């Protein structure tokens, strides 16, 4: 453990706050510390003005209106408000919801909660690349379907769902469409009108903004979407989300989106080139690798690879100082293999062998080359120690062997 160098390649988990974002936030901690709901004095007005401006920036970023943006503590809360709020508001229309097996837990868990309370949820399956079948979605929508919740970009494997087509199907069939765009805001093209999105969740900390602030877009026209709040109190955010606004956070979120959109295409191109470089080097130098996710329709920053015959956690241990994510990216505290990879039909053996690399704004080509070199060396070393790799070299496919379970 002599490596002192630290390289961050986990940008789907979170990102560093961009210095320009921090700078924009700082005055709102000390000088303009007012409560945006204090309508009677200058301190409150300064805070309110800042949040109004932020709201406008964020609304414009997704083609929405200011009054359609609700500030939250993050995308998890946004997803909860959207799903629980819509289900409870429209329960007279029906008690059916649609989502997908590979959604984030912040969507799956509120769905499960509703199932326990008598709602019915259809979980769409995915193919080996993590893609849903649009015909299956069309067939799943019923007259009593209240809401369809499908993410834009998958946090683990990066696969992009065809949001525009999904929005059109939901609109045609009279179901509300909620999109968790946490991984794509500021990166992929997003327009709530063009894509017929009725509810959209996003978070600041995935785009070089601060943690603890997110937003929920709630459509006000064609159709007007109404939600039952899940947090009650002072009636902030037009009663949809009570609680004093996180003014510095909101200001930082807006600045983060502004910066991301200014350079969106150039940054996407740069990040994709770095990701492709890493992918290419690993594929060139190692055998028995599998790319997880859609090879084309994928987040530019995401690279999820299964390194057959070695276990992911041991690989992470073998590349000290390099921050990547192994197994179920968000729940790697547990030893269960990723439920996303399972849903794609990836065997548990390969799921245990998966690593997610997430390239970001501050990643350099030199870092990528260093990481490639270290990963290749660690994989080779671990495979020399692996009884499964030994079998593979002897021409025995370990997946055909009868293993005693323990």
């Amino acid at each position, binding site marked *: 453990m002599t490596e002192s160098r630290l390289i961050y390649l986990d940008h789907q988990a979170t990102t560093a706050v961009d210095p320009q974002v921090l700078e924009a936030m700082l005055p709102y901690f000390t000088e303009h510390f007012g409560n945006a709901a204090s309508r009677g004095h200058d301190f409150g007005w300064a805070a309110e003005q800042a949040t109004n401006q932020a709201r406008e920036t964020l609304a414009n970023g997704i083609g929405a209106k200011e009054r359609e943006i609700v500030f939250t503590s993050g995308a998890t809360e946004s997803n909860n408000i959207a799903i629980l709020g819509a289900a409870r508001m429209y329960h007279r229309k029906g008690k059916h919801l649609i989502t997908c097996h590979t959604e984030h837990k912040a969507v799956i868990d509120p769905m499960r909660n509703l199932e326990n309370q008598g709602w019915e949820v259809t979980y769409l399956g995915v193919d080996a690349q993590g893609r849903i079948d649009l015909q299956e979605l069309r067939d799943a929508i019923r007259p009593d379907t209240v809401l369809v919740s499908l993410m834009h970009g998958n946090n683990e494997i990066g696969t992009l769902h065809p949001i525009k087509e999904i929005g059109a199907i939901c609109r045609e069939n009279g179901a509300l469409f909620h999109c968790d765009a946490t991984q794509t805001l500021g990166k992929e093209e997003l327009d709530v009108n063009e894509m017929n999105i009725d509810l959209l969740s996003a978070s600041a900390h995935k785009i070089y903004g601060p943690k603890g602030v997110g937003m929920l877009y709630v459509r006000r026209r064609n159709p007007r979407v109404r939600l039952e709040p899940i947090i009650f109190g002072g009636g902030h955010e037009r009663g949809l989300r009570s609680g004093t606004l996180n003014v510095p956070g909101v200001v930082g979120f807006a600045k983060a989106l502004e910066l991301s959109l200014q350079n969106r295409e150039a940054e996407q191109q740069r990040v994709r080139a770095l990701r492709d470089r890493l992918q290419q080097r690993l594929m060139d130098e190692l055998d028995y690798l599998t790319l997880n996710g859609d090879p084309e329709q994928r987040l530019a920053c995401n690279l999820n690879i299964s390194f057959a015959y070695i276990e992911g956690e041991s690989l992470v241990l073998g590349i000290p100082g390099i921050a990547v994510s192994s197994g179920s990216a968000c729940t790697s505290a547990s030893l269960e293999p990723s439920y996303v990879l399972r849903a794609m039909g990836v065997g548990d053996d390969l799921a245990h062998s998966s690593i997610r690399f997430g390239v970001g704004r501050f990643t350099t080509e030199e870092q990528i080359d260093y990481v490639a070199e270290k990963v290749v060396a660690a994989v080779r070393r671990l495979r020399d120690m692996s009884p*499964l790799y030994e079998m593979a070299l002897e021409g025995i496919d370990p997946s055909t062997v009868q293993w005693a379970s323990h």
Partner: protein
Amino acid sequence: MVYSDKVIDHYENPRNVGSLDKDADNVGTGVVGAPECGDVMKLQIQVEDGVITDARFKTFGCGSAIASSSLATEWLKGRSLDDANEIRNVDIAEELALPPVKIHCSVLAEDAIRQAIADFQNKQQND
């Protein structure tokens, strides 16, 4: 996952990695675990006059699994078969300071030792 220094040491400098001839009369082989569970250990012993003269392992698994099997080979060398049968998973877990979530790695190592010894003894009976 934060590992103990001893786990890191075995992971970085594994002892006795490799394979012995599984068909040799004086070699016992134990293969335990399953790929879909995230760990497979292959542990082999070479026995002469009732004493283990060599031990080798190959492991697919996390750092704790690699360390448990590496430590097992270290402890096996020079022991009589009876002494080898005395090795318990709790001793391995304690020596490596394994956290509760990794205790199964030491259990697997104990199973591998038992299986290797049984395999060797089977071969002797069949002669």
